[in-house]
């Protein structure tokens, strides 16, 4: 376990599915060299099969006894979909516009489809997904090479590319399928929570760029922080699929504000819930009902009295209020713990540490 944990809260009531987060991540980290198909951040429509396709059915995570469950490594052809290009260059000479492969699946394939009968009871909402930087990561547990590590300073889960041999057990072990295989370099890669940015006091790109301002970032033990208050104090932010047992550190304020249902004559059915409660329970656990009650009660309170700390938090009047990061945190923290000050880019992530001229191991120096 890491000594502190950085976490993200996403308010699903505010996500507009614009994919700005996806694009900010893609252009920053994963636009080339075998990462073409990777979406460290993706936003999927729920109900929907997601990315990779049917990820919730591909196994991984832990069983009730705490043992790792077997999982499946998704295929590029079937579950991710082969990324495609168009024949832009040929268009000028009159060719028809066409993709270079026959697309079968991709991120956002079933965008906005949802479920139910329009306009009576149809519904959908968006779920943006990144690596959850789990407290008990399935990916880390499954790696036989100890190539995945969780940083002490902030609990960020990273792959040491020098140790990774491309075995892909991590991918089978992550129930969220948020770790990807790069076939060009034969190594696994994943969301790094923009650690080079957070070490400078900047939020991850997906959070900073978010148009709907749905993302809060801060340390879980920072009692003054929004993340602490949403997760621990008000308990309205919940992990996705807590039954996977990985103890995720990305939390979601569940979507509660869908319109009511209409009856056959088009009249509002009082007290109806368009998003079935059992759907939310599957995604966020039993706690979702209490979270929804709290949210509604606070909304009511706000309406009646004009006061609600929770509503003020969720409205997030000022953008910078959403991020509790400090440019000096990493240096100060390291000093206080007698640890070496982290370099702008984590050294363990760079080549060098394991590539120096070999000397024999010293006793007990390795796990």
């Amino acid at each position: 376990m890491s000594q502190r944990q950085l976490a993200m809260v996403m308010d699903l009531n505010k996500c507009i599915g614009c994919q700005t987060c996806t694009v900010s991540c893609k252009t920053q980290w994963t636009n080339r060299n075998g990462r073409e198909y990777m979406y460290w951040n993706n936003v999927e429509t729920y109900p929907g099969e997601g990315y990779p396709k049917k990820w919730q059915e591909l196994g991984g995570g832990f069983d009730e006894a705490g043992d790792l469950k077997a999982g499946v490594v998704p295929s590029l052809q079937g579950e991710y979909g082969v990324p495609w290009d168009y024949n832009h260059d040929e268009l000028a000479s009159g060719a028809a516009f066409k993709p270079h492969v026959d697309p079968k699946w991709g991120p956002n394939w079933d965008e906005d489809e949802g479920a139910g009968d329009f306009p009576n009871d149809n519904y959908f909402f968006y779920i943006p997904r990144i690596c959850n930087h789990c407290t008990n990561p399935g990916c880390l547990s499954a790696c036989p090479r100890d190539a995945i590590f969780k940083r002490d300073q902030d609990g960020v889960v990273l792959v040491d590319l020098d140790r990774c041999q491309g075995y892909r057990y991590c991918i089978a072990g992550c129930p969220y399928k948020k770790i990807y295989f790069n076939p060009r370099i034969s190594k696994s890669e994943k969301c790094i929570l923009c650690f080079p940015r957070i070490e400078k006091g900047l939020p991850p790109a997906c959070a900073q760029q978010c148009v709907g301002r749905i993302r809060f970032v801060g340390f879980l033990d920072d009692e003054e922080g929004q993340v602490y208050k949403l997760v621990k104090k008000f308990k309205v932010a919940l992990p996705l699929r807590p039954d996977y047992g990985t103890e995720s550190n990305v939390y979601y304020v569940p979507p509660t504000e869908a319109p009511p249902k209409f009856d056959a004559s088009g009249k509002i059915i009082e007290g109806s819930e368009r998003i079935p409660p059992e759907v939310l329970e599957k995604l966020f656990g039993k706690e979702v009902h209490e979270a929804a009650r709290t949210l509604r009660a606070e909304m009511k309170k706000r309406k009646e009295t004009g006061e609600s700390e929770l509503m003020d938090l969720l409205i997030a009047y000022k953008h910078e209020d959403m991020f509790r990061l400090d440019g000096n945190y990493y240096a100060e923290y390291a000093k206080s713990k007698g640890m070496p000050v982290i370099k702008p880019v984590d050294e363990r992530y760079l080549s060098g540490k394991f590539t120096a001229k070999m000397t024999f191991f010293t006793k007990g120096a390795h796990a």
Partner: protein
Amino acid sequence: MKTFKTIMMLVSLLGLNSLMAQSLNALHVKEDLSKVSLTSPLWQKAKAQSVEVYPQTTIEMNDAELVRANEANLAKILHVKTLSDGKSVAFLLQWKDKTKSLQTVQSTTDYSDGFAVQFSTANDKLPYIGMGSENRAVIVHLQKATGTIFEPNNSGDVYHQVNTSNQNTFAKELTSYKNEVAKQGSGDYQRAFIAEGFRSMTQIRDNAEPSLMEMKYDKGMWSALLVRPLKSEHLSLQDSFPVAFAIWDGEKKNRDGSKLLSAWVGVSLDAKAKALALLDEVKGDASNGETLMMENCSACHQYKTVKNAPNYMAPNLSNIGGYANASYLKESIMEPSAVVVPGYNLNAHKNFLWYTSDEKGVRTSTMPPFAHLDEKSVNDLVAFMKTLKVEVEK
């Protein structure tokens, strides 16, 4: 069961558990081996000897498809030819594989066939067969049948990238970069590693353990070559030394510990060399060993049809007789913490820990030492454990 017992008793009484170590005799040649290839006529002079390789079943990995594909795995025969010129040693390995599997750059689920040859840096005690053990490091030469693979510069460097959209500024540099990448960025996947126990395996990149490797697939048969010096920075191979082999079948999603591996076998560089005593088998009553195993071991270990113990409680011993040497089995009975197979990360087994691990990563087995057993019982147990292995594929 009864017939099995009778057979076992006969086997042990007849002393078929050979007491002598298996030994590969290297043919001495005058030619310089550092230039030998798979097709070299030198190989025609050498006699092939067989080495059995068994499916690794000590721990089960968490890839559901891999587990399914390997359920009914049998052992295979490796045909091994060995040459030495006094400076280098060369191995030619051949084995049957119905499918040629390569890892490609267009797939997330392809795995390649491959092979590895493992050497021990310690000459007095055997390292653990898989990854070596504390103070008993192993050197592993590995080749995967990837064909030519692409890396930005073919030296494991994944960091230096040039954004190809920036043509205005970098057009010229990009062209020369691309040419350079095309020139350097494709080669076979060959690696040398050093390991001193699980999770310590580290790639050797400074050519301190140089080698020549080659793989070729023809008509359902892989041929693989390794040539390396007898003396190098970490190794000094003399007269007789232990070596171990492993092969991977990409079709069955093999990689890492999911492979077929041999026990340590001896290599003699000249016919007069003494066989290695540390590879000696033991003489024991396997039938009594079976009873002892049931009484002492089956509450924690699963093996073959005996599955009294819950999953993950302790390493599975179903093929232990195929890839473990008697000395290792003895050591593990008397001193379980000498080598601790880590299984999955500790996070995965909250209920049954087969070992604990301190902050320095030193593992202590939860198995108590069985040093109270008398010598005969230990030998009987080991004799039985040596029978625990699947059949060899026809």
